[in-house]
């Protein structure tokens, strides 16, 4: 069954406040600046990098300048400008090759050329890093750290909601991709999640805050495969219509994006919303509602299956 990925609202690279995002934005502006300089004052640029200030060089620099401007605009406008960054890398290769060739001629200022080569090499490294970071990940997963908030109202008092969540044995009942959550020390837990095709992730987390009937906060242990921190709050819903459960999560998932994607089966924000609905059902009706299709992972027609099912089947 097709599940639409909800793209989180994002503007150009200028909106992404992660390290990668800031670096990408910097490269975009750098491109614009350099491009303008090459187009408007090619003579000065030629002198700066140690090549002769003649017509041929100036024309070449103007062409490179236009290329830089194009790349700069592309990077600043697009939300995930991986393609433009790879274009920058290609441009850098051309630049390095040009500069290296120029080193061969005695007419040129070798010291300045060397400086130019080193600078371009540095910029190339930054371009390659950003291009790679932005080329990974899943739709809906920001390349760098990202924050999610999802909420639901449960028709139960905060104490009951807190108590159910706090007993980590209950978590696999509504986070159905979890195989187990075990305490390994006083405030430390070990989590195992799996999905179809043998996909499996394990990580350790520690509870950083436990405010009874109000809030639980946790964070993955240093070096975990799934780096994240999260919290769940239990607040009075307006009109005394139960408890407003609010989950916030910060995560950085590039390294485990593929495995996590297979396990969660949907983008992480949708999965948290789905888990909260399951949590609400556990508290309000005592089980998670299933259909003949939903008990299976992946597509299955809306009809019974031959396999004997345990009531309240969980995959």
């Amino acid at each position, binding site marked *: 069954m097709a599940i639409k990925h909800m793209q989180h609202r994002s503007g150009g690279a200028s909106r992404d406040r992660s390290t990668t995002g800031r670096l990408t934005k910097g490269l975009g502006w750098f491109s614009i600046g350099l491009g303008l300089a090459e187009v408007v004052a090619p003579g000065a640029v030629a002198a700066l990098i140690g090549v002769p200030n003649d017509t041929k060089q100036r024309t070449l620099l103007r062409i490179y300048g236009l290329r830089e401007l194009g790349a700069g605009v592309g990077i600043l406008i697009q939300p995930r400008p991986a393609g433009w960054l790879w274009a920058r890398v290609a441009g850098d290769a051309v630049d390095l090759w040009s500069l290296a060739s120029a080193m061969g001629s005695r007419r040129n200022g070798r010291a300045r050329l060397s400086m130019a080569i080193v600078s371009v090499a540095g910029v190339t490294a930054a371009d390659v890093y950003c291009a790679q970071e932005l080329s990974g990940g899943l739709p809906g997963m920001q390349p760098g750290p990202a924050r999610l908030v999802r909420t639901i109202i449960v028709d139960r008092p905060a104490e009951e909601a807190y108590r159910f969540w706090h007993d980590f044995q209950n978590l696999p009942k509504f986070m159905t991709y979890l195989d187990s959550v075990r305490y390994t020390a006083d405030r430390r837990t070990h989590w195992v999640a799996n999905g179809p095709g043998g996909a499996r992730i394990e990580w350790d987390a520690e509870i950083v805050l436990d405010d009874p009937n109000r809030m639980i906060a946790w964070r993955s242990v240093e070096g975990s495969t799934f780096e994240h921190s999260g919290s769940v709050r239990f607040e009075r819903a307006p009109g005394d219509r139960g408890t407003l459960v609010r989950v916030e999560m910060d995560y950085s998932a590039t390294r485990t994006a593929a495995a996590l994607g297979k396990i969660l089966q949907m983008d992480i924000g949708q999965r948290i919303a789905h888990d909260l609905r399951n949590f609400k059902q556990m508290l309000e009706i005592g*089980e998670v509602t299933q*259909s003949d299709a939903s008990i299976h992972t992946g597509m299955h027609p809306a009809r019974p299956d031959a396999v004997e099912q345990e009531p309240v089947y969980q995959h």
Partner: protein
Amino acid sequence: MRANCWIGKNQVNVETVPDPQILNHHDAIIRITSTAICGSDLHLYGGFVPTVESGDILGHEFMGEVVETGRDVQKVKKGDRVVTAFPIACGVCFPCRSKMFACCENSNPNAGIAEAMLGHPIAGVFGYSHMLGGFAGGQAEYARVPFADVGTIKIPEEMPDEKVLFLSDIFPTGYMGAEMCDIEPGDTIAVWGAGPVGLFAMKSAYLLGAERVIAIDRLRYRLDMAVQRAGAIPINYEETSVLETLKEMTGGRGPDKCIDAVGMEADGHGLLYAYDRAKQALMMETDRPIALREAIMACRNGGTVSVIGVYAGFIDKFPMGSLMNRSLTIKTGQCHVQRYMKPLLDRISNGEIDPSMVITHTMPLEDAPQGYAMFKAKEDNCEKVVLKPL
């Protein structure tokens, strides 16, 4: 068991599939004795509803005998004869407690998909796409009924299936359509669509105190049924101008209340219809709101437009100016069937209405494909098809 499955656009097939099982503790399994084809099944049949998979069992109007119950079922017992409501509702969440069962927050395992398409999730429904839960439908020999205590009503021995089957959907839907009009004595009610839901809306409007009920359709045989079975005054929109005729009948004011019992696959003629069809073909408009537009334009100032025809997506050229400037009210919704089953069973019991009046064809479940084709083409004066599993 044998079950009628959606295969593709305009194609259904009766196949042998495994019997249903208890999946949740609140479930019951029903052995089906009668089931029907609904006008909204035709939206699935024609490929208008997204998220339908090949192999899905269709059908949401069914009744029969309870053969198995889950651990937490308390009111319903093995051997009970019951009719099932088409929306699946837990009965305890905030909307269910407000009697808005079709808005249940706990009965749709695919709530995320419904949310993406509609803005918020709604209740699961039997046999009506994966967006509404991926539940197997009831055009089959057996069905699994979640929340059996909430979604079924027990039927006395002496009442035949044909009299009570439509408590599952179309009778409460038509009734809710009339009820949403807040009918006052002396009211003139105009109903677009003389299909089974329209007929129940017309009959219910009289039961709720309307003085005059007008039926609007293009098919002679359906208008005849509206006259004979529901006591309505007919208007054939292919023979006369609906808006002018309604004005004549009401001294220029228009009907007090208007009911749209047509929905997204409205037929029409003229420029606006051609426009809607073209936009649909170009996928720029998902629904054709011809009946709805007319109902709004026709309605008297300060009146109510009650919409029970099914819509799926977006419409174009909506007469918002007419609505706003003339103080109209629109009321709409998928029917909260659980709310109506008991009071309407009572009305059937004391002879106020015989719902079997809409049935024109009865056939074995095996003939479901022919039933669908005939119902869609409106052949042989087809109004309502009942299927009998053998």
